[in-house]
């Protein structure tokens, strides 16, 4: 067991973890942050995307021990005081989700995307989301949502 101290969605945690524990499993099972999900075992799907110190990472592709001393934001940490994050709002408004399984990862990556490029074109949005698979939507409404969020100043 290794002891780690992390900040997740604003809360501080100190926990003992097995070194082999993936960050996503730590979030889901030890912290109960089940909003972040697992969709693959090869780092391809992006469903597990979270922000590590503000940048997107696939939480299935790192060990919890590697996050020691770092700050993580998950889909559950976006809304503040019951107020949806503009990206969440845009996903809803633009029907950018169907089953919703890819959605947490998609929203987190979209936020990262706008951090780099606050006013992306359609093509730039598509490229920025290349690491996130969605089987339901055909992506079109996701692209629309990200651009709407950009227009609404979603890069916060």
């Amino acid at each position: 067991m290794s002891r780690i101290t992390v900040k997740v969605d604003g809360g501080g945690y100190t926990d003992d973890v097995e070194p082999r524990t993936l960050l996503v499993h730590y979030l889901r099972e030890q912290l109960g942050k089940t909003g972040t999900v697992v969709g693959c075992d090869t780092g391809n799907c992006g469903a597990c995307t979270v922000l590590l110190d503000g940048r997107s990472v696939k939480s299935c592709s790192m060990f919890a021990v590697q996050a020691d001393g770092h700050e993580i934001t998950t889909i559950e940490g976006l809304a503040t005081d019951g107020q949806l994050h503009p990206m969440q709002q845009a996903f809803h408004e633009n029907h950018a989700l169907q089953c919703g399984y890819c959605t947490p990862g998609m929203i987190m990556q979209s936020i990262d995307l706008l951090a780099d490029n606050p006013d992306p074109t359609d093509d730039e949005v598509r490229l920025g989301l290349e690491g996130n698979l969605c089987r339901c939507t055909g992506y079109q409404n996701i692209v629309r949502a990200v651009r709407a969020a950009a227009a609404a100043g979603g890069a916060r």
Partner: protein
Amino acid sequence: MTTTQERPAAEVGNPRRRKEDARLITGRTRWTDNVVLPGMLHLAMVRSPFAHARITGIDTEAARSSSGVVAVLTGADLAEEQGGLPFAWTATPEQKAPAHPSIAVDTVNFAAEIVAVVVARSAAEANDAADLVDVDYEELPAALDLKAAAADEVLAHPDLGTNVSARFNFDSAEAGTGGDVDAAIAAARDGGIVIEREYRQQRLIPAFMEPRSIVADPTGEQLTVWSSTQVPHFVKIFIALVLGIPEHKIRVIAPDVGGGFGGKLQFTPEEVLTVIAARRTGKPCKYSETRSESLQAAHHGRDQWQKLTLAADRDGTVRGLKVELLANMGAYLGLVSAGIPILGAFMYNGIYKFPAYRLTCTNVFTNKTWTDAYRGAGRPEATFAVERLMDELAAEVGVDPLEIRERNWIKHEEFPFTTVSGMHYDSGNYEAATAKAKGLFGYDDLRAEQQRRRESGDPVQLGIGISTYTEMCGLAPSRWLGSMGYVGGGWEHASIRMLPTGKVEVITGTSPHGQGHETAWSQIVADRLGVPFEDVEVLHGDTQVSARGLDTYGSRSLAIGGMAVLAAADKVIEKAKPIAAQLLEANADDLEYTGGRFGVRGTEAGMSLAELAFAVFQGHKLDGGAERSLDADATLEPDDFSFPHGTHLCAAEVDTETGAVTIRSYVSVDDVGNVINPVIVEGQVHGGVAQGIGQALFEEAVHDESGTLVTGSFDAYLVAAAPDLPSFVTARTETPATTNQLGVKGVGEAGTIASTPAVVNAVVDAVRHLGVSDVEMPCTPYRVWKALQEGAKS
């Protein structure tokens, strides 16, 4: 008139944003894998690396003594207890099917079949111990190639004596729905046109994003099972039938389910084994598959060879179509495996007036993962065949492919129309959809550009692909299903509970997993009962709440489930009416129900449904005989299928130097009848078209010579990401269905059915002048390039 409680304009047709989003965008979701119960144990499966092998020994010693292990189960341990997995479709009375164990007992028949189950205190410990299970195999010859298997070269199940499961025929001459196809072909060989083609429908993987997951809790009075399934009601019945657990002691919950596309329309070995593990250990047990397991072991789709012979006059008027089909069942029959080609069998004539038609289908076993429903199920295959053939015919005749279609399609004034396969198309307007699509697409300009590029020898050629499709959806009239050999029915159930505060609970037997029923059903009920959209809650996916239902697949939910909801709403009003009459001291005949309120005609007097609900709840003032409930149930049996249709146009650029295909523009005009929620419909079309493009360009489950799936991860099984797809232009025409009160059809599968041939037609159209008349799917750059090399030679 009083206008106290006027609701906004009609809900039906309103682009409502979805109710279900709230939890999904905030991460407050309820996936099966989220379920954690005290003392819960975890399963790991040991799976066969061989496609066909005899198990000569399993050493579980090391695994049993591994840390945290509670049990290790093998086929030998469970031979009796596991029962056999069911199939629900019998294609012919003579159909052959092997016994289908959940865990292999002495032989394995496809790579990834389960041979041992480890039950441990943590998932990690279960994985650790699974690595220690030592299985000895004696490899057997495997039947892998479909055509070779159909010829019984190697037997997938030697004890069956053949790989042929069933041979199914439809002949329009025999059925009395048309002429003799052989005569039509013979006539066409003499002066007409005969087009003969072979198309391969490659093996696909549904690849829902949420891997399957099951939790079985045996504590308490009841067995509770959470499963990431499209069909909780099926799962409940089959747990009872297969494991002998009384049906009334089983509760199945499909909480939030992350996609299905037919892939979760199954009763699975993993469900059986999780329940058995829970029963044996007396503890809640969980199994969540990995993506690699999912790609290998969850059922696959398509995998057919189609041999087609089309007879036509010189002017392109089609005289007949003969279809010879080989359908790969894989190693076993799943729930509806045997019926998939049958669902396609009635659609090979598409939107056309073919006078003669025959289909023969052979269902064949191989040592591969079993196949079953995947979005479209049978109908994409049929639509692909006929829409590709229409392009080939146009090329042969030398006219625009749209013209050939127009020459053969059913004209709008000819509806209702009984097709050569005996289907009753109630409505449609192919002219309108096509005209609209052409306009949005800029058809004539693109044709002109295509011509310019051909003439200049541009290395990037442009192709235009057309697909004018129809499909039968709303599975299905029970009587029809029965006549086709399916054991189940096709009805759907709904109930409405009027709560004392005037809020409404709608319970549906459909089981959505992305389709937005919570929103759409709320719209239907809000309109019918005249209550605010927000006051309606739709409950589903828990057999304890939704006791009766046949779940979600086959684009059936709205046309059948939605209609059941409507019928239940009507019953609520019917039930409320005499009570309202009594309380208002009026004659029931003088009551009028509008805007959520019973009003006494010609007076100001009235009572809202909410007031009535409360009065009924109190019961104080009601007549003695009046039932103290406004709740109502309805079970709806559909009269017939519904037949959405549409025209999809695809412009694709082919880089002749590399073979790369880029979709430049894509227009779909779909006629799904009346629309409850245009936003949801558009989303379904986007997703459906994307999956159809996936079949055309990207996806294929490939096995190596030993039967191992080489596309066993998302590295190799290519699901398109955002940059790989274009933006679609979608539009609709609305020709209401006449087979249901709402005039709705189905939309879940339309995009997938339509888009594959549109894309492949575009690819072939781009390079036809270079000697290419077909590219096998998926049209990879490599395949396109090879076809160009071949074309250059010829």
